[in-house]
């Protein structure tokens, strides 16, 4: 397909269609309304396409559950307060092992917060978000191309592991216009959907549920989920690095923050050739690239975490490093998007202080 | 019309709907209990069951089979 200029939210929608998504259910909330708007038109052109503007977030995630158990590729999208409401359904999807794609265009919080880009839903997303022992795969794109690629990939991941997958962007990525090449669906071997409900014709009746009253059976189910999550950790952890080879300090940032961090690192290296700062950018927030950080800590002792939040991913960095290395933190909660120059100043201050300390 | 009923006593919970609604009063409560501990309903062969199936219609446990000539 040709390169085209697209809005982030539209790129998500089109990528979903290209991935074979036939069902979209959602409820309006800023800053992601262009996505349901796009889907409301686009799904009329898709055979079997279903678009429902639901009465609530609760209804929309449960319509996703229904469409998913019926065998369709289904998605919903929202922004932070709406995602909180969807947690009930996400927990059920996880418990029932049903695939689904959920897009969160994160905005400032807590509460109604604001409609500016933020990363304050990291905890909610990476810890499952709802009740019970479970995880969902969380993808963190940083460009319109990646919004498309990761939304596209999310459907395969969801079907492969029978898990809910979240694509987590923010208001900036959603509103951004960038050139994008739409991914094209190729034949991929995915597990047969032998659990879906179609009416029990020439087969025993099927049952999809999350209620397991027997505690031992419930424990077994939990361990089964955990084994699946370990497999996901082994196979699907994704990250990228930038200027890491000579780095003495590594910035850790994801999504929009990683874009800003790149700008800041380029600026610093341009201004002072002696500054050796690199970047590790988690692409999957869960599973978190723990091993990559661990490995980096054998060589690098300074880790600078930058988030558009008061500090959430920094806890995963701390867990990953497990005491090795020093963690520096720069956080901007509430929807503030700092400039690369602002971030560069903070990185430089920590970098020079650390260098001085080492010389002593 | 002649009929008869067969009650699977192990499914019976003794709600007595069948007894209350039988027009021929052909169902009675047993003096014995089933393995669940319920005093169960049983067919009173001395009465004239017509096979109308009212007992089966009201039985919550779907445990009454009705036969008719």
């Amino acid at each position, binding site marked *: 397909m040709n390169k085209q200029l697209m809005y982030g939210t539209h790129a998500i929608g089109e990528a979903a269609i290209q991935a074979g998504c036939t069902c979209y259910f959602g409820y309006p909330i800023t800053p992601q309304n262009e996505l349901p708007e796009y889907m409301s038109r686009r799904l009329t052109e898709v055979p079997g396409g279903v678009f429902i503007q639901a009465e609530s977030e609760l209804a929309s995630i449960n319509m996703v559950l*229904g469409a998913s158990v019926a065998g369709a590729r289904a998605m919903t999208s929202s922004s932070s307060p709406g995602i909180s409401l969807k947690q009930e359904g996400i927990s*059920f999807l996880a418990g*029932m092992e049903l695939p689904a794609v959920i897009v969160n265009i994160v905005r400032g919080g807590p509460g109604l917060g604001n409609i500016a880009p933020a990363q304050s839903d990291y905890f909610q997303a990476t810890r499952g978000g709802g009740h019970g022992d479970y995880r969902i795969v969380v993808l963190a794109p940083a460009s319109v191309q990646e919004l498309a690629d990761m939304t596209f990939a999310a459907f395969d991941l969801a079907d492969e592991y029978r898990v809910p997958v979240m694509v987590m962007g923010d208001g900036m990525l959603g509103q951004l216009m960038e050139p994008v090449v739409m991914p094209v669906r190729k034949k991929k071997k995915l597990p047969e959907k032998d659990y879906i409900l179609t*009416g029990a014709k020439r087969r025993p009746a099927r049952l999809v549920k999350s209620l397991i009253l027997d505690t031992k059976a419930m424990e077994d189910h939990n361990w089964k989920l955990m084994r699946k999550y370990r497999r996901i950790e082994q196979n699907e952890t994704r990250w990228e690095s930038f200027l890491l080879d000579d780095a003495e300090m590594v910035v850790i940032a994801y999504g929009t923050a990683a874009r800003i961090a790149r700008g800041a690192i380029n600026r610093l290296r341009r201004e002072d050739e002696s500054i050796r700062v690199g970047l590790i950018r988690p692409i999957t927030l869960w599973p978190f690239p723990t091993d990559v950080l661990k490995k980096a800590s054998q060589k690098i002792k300074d880790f600078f975490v930058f988030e558009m939040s008061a500090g959430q991913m920094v806890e995963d960095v701390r867990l990953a490093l497990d005491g090795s290395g020093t963690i520096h933190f720069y956080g901007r909660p509430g929807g503030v998007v700092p400039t690369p120059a602002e971030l560069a100043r903070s990185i430089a201050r920590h970098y020079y202080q650390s260098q001085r300390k080492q010389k002593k | 019309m002649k009929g008869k009923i067969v009650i699977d006593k192990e499914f019976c919970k003794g709600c007595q709907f069948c007894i209350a*609604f039988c027009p021929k009063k052909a169902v009675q409560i047993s003096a014995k209990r089933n393995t669940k501990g319920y005093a169960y309903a049983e067919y009173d062969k001395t009465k004239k069951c017509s096979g109308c199936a009212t007992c089966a219609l*009201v039985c*919550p446990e779907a445990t009454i089979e009705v036969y008719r000539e």
Partner: protein
Amino acid sequence: MKKVFSRPKSLRKVSMHYCPGCGHSIIHRLIAELLDELKLRDKTICVPPAGCAVLAYYYLDIDMVEAPHGRATAVATGIKRVHPKNLVFSYQGDGDLAAIGTSEALHAANRGEQITVIFVNNAVYGMTGGQMAPTTLAGQKTTTSPFGRDPKIEGPPIRVCELLATLHNTSYLERVAVNSPAHIKKTKNALRKAFEHQKKNTGFSLVEILSPCPTNWRMDPLQSCKWIDEVMVKEFPLGVLKEVKC
């Protein structure tokens, strides 16, 4: 002699967990009978509720998926939109449909989703131990209205059929009961009609069934059947509330 009545095929041969005299088990059997008679068993998908009847999936031998409490109509919507030719019904209690799931039910009805809701009204939360429900009668004592429901404080009971009858896209709404042979027959007919309406895509259909809950009403099974006739029906009059041409 010929066998004229036996357990329907779509009802598995297992003992149900319901209390003696519970209406759920009668309703389950009626559904199973209809699925057998209309040969719909292998086309049906059911969404059972949170509550006593969640375990319906051990009894009805059809495809089933659990829904979170109150969300059955949303889940059923998703299924039916993907499989428009299947018979899709939700089975919901009064707390499920008329309290936590009011929004989902109302909007599914308003959109005219081609689904059937089997709404079991027993005026209490059964599974959780007999708390006040949105359909608890004025003055009725429950574990959370120990002095009787006071309509001035707790509101009067909600009449779901009447509420939904005002919506344009509802096609068939009837209130029935399972407390006597005649009423049980009527209930079966109402369910049959609702399924037929769904087959013909006339819109959203709902059958409200007044159902005895002897345990939480603190009555014996026969008393609770009487109570439906003498008390409950006065608040929830039986009959067809709405029917469009099928």
